[in-house]
């Protein structure tokens, strides 16, 4: 009896997992160029391959499952391929695309994969509304969400990626736009290497190791991104390494260990960003003289800026810890704002000093520093600190219970105190 039951269960299970009525690879093989291949709902095991200009269209419940350690779907040596509305899974990569001119990927779901989409040597690629969720493991054991190598003219928009190594990894790509994506719980939100002419707009990066990692890249615009909660070991909101010509505008950079760090970089403009509650807002090492941070708002950061000997320029920024006044009433503080602090500079040289961040001793040291360094003229000094800041104050709600508890605690302690004296 048990055996029969087991067998029945087995068949039930099998019939659910394998949808035998439709052969996906066969359908692809017989399709003529330009045709739409519709894949009905069901789960299909295999390693499928597309080598001609067709559209693969799934529906709710269409799932391709990659077998062994090979990708679920490969697209190679062709032009104008579209894939939409499909769920992909498997142990390895979900989709690998090589040598394709004109690729569209839309509305794809990828779960528990090692790597989501791997694209190499392609042109005119558009990736939209893809969800990638990686496996639960340390990021060193995973692959990337969307990875693009040696390609040109790429658009990546509206994707949601979590739990992978690098959310969007880009290497040796010309002309790329990354916009309105959301990457969380990964190593790097977006990682650009050896890339030129790149734009990252309106993206949200939350709680990765680093939000935007930009390396060996030229000509880049980072605008209107929200980058928050990168506060783990070695966490940065943005890290620019060996980057030339970058514009960083209108971003909100909140609650990171280091907001924006620049290393070995030149011609970087950091304008009109909001730096809030970062442990260190701005860091620069080996950056060129023309690196400029202007018209930003610095609020609630423990350390506003730190650098090596070279420093960088600060201009027209608002600092909430600026202590000067504006007698001329022109909206600009009368005395310069000095961001340099001995502790900040030490921390750049020797990382072990991080232990002392905001410790009582450093607090005292920094306030002494600010008195001494008032004479500092060149390094990390803003001669025209802005005073007023447009600020949207959040309305706080009154918490009656907490108030009553507090009142009770205060009054009863006072009463006890009084009683302790008189009795």
């Amino acid at each position, binding site marked *: 009896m048990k055996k029969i039951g087991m067998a029945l269960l087995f068949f039930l299970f099998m019939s659910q997992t394998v949808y035998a009525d439709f052969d996906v690879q066969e359908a692809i093989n017989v399709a003529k160029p330009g045709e739409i291949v519709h894949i009905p709902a069901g789960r299909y095991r295999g390693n499928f391959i597309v080598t001609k200009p067709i559209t693969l269209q799934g529906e709710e419940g269409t799932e391709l499952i990659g077998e062994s350690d090979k990708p679920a779907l490969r697209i190679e040596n062709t032009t104008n391929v579209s894939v939409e509305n499909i769920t992909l899974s498997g142990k390895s990569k979900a989709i690998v695309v090589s040598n394709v001119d004109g690729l569209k990927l839309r509305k794809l779901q990828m779960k528990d994969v090692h790597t989501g989409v791997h694209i190499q040597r392609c042109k005119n690629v558009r990736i939209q509304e893809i969800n990638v969720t990686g496996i639960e493991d340390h*990021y060193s054991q995973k692959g990337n969400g969307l990875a693009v190598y040696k390609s040109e003219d790429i658009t990546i928009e509206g994707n949601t990626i979590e739990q992978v190594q690098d959310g969007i990894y880009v290497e040796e790509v010309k002309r790329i736009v990354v916009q309105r994506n959301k990457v969380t719980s990964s*190593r790097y939100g977006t990682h650009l290497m050896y890339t030129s002419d790149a734009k990252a707009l309106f993206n949200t990066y939350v709680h990765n190791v680093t939000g935007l990692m930009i390396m060996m890249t030229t000509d880049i615009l980072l605008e209107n991104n929200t980058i928050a909660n990168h506060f783990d070991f070695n966490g940065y909101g943005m890290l620019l390494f060996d980057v030339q010509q970058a514009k960083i505008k209108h971003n909100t950079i909140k609650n990171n260990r280091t907001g924006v760090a620049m290393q070995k970089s030149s011609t970087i403009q950091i304008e009109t960003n909001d730096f809030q509650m970062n442990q260190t807002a701005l860091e620069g090492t080996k950056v060129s003289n023309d690196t400029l941070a202007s018209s930003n708002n610095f609020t609630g950061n423990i350390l506003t800026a730190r650098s090596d000997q070279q420093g960088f320029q600060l201009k027209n920024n608002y600092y909430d810890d600026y202590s000067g006044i504006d007698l001329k009433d022109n909206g600009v503080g009368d005395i310069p704002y000095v961001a340099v602090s001995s502790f900040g500079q030490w921390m750049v040289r020797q990382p072990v000093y991080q232990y002392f961040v905001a410790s009582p001793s450093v607090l005292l040291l920094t306030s002494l520093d600010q008195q001494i360094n008032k004479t500092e003229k060149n390094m990390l000094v803003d001669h025209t600190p802005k005073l007023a800041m447009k600020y949207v104050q959040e309305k706080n709600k009154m918490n009656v219970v907490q108030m009553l508890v507090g009142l009770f605690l205060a009054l009863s302690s006072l009463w006890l105190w009084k009683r302790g004296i008189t009795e």
Partner: protein
Amino acid sequence: MKKWLMSVLLCCGVLVGCSEKTYEPREIVSETDVCKICNMSIVHNAYAGQIALKNGDYEMFDDIGCLMEYMKANGEDVVGAAYIKDAAKNEWIDVINAVYVYNKDYWTPMNYGVVAFDSKEAAQEWMTTEGEGQLLDYKDLHDFKWGIHK
């Protein structure tokens, strides 16, 4: 107070003393180790390098290129020993004894295209599967032009 100072100094002495002489490679801690030069966290362990400094500190690198850049910037005088991972066996080997293979199409974390092996045979074996490359030794790395090559 004097006692304190003495004990602190003694501790310093002991700590310095302990770490001199031999320079053993240390394990990679993936949670915290980042490349000293480029700041990337070390996840592709098979390409990682490390330098044991004479003062007992360790610096980790994600790619042999970054390691060589550090050597160039800081001079070899401060370096006690330098190690690179054998790309095939994933074991630490001394950079001086390693055999290097370069091919611009080999992928490495910084895409410099140079991988290290413990012997010529291992390098040959790698080349039969990954494509022919140019054999280099440690001296060649000093004037090697790091960066991607078109």
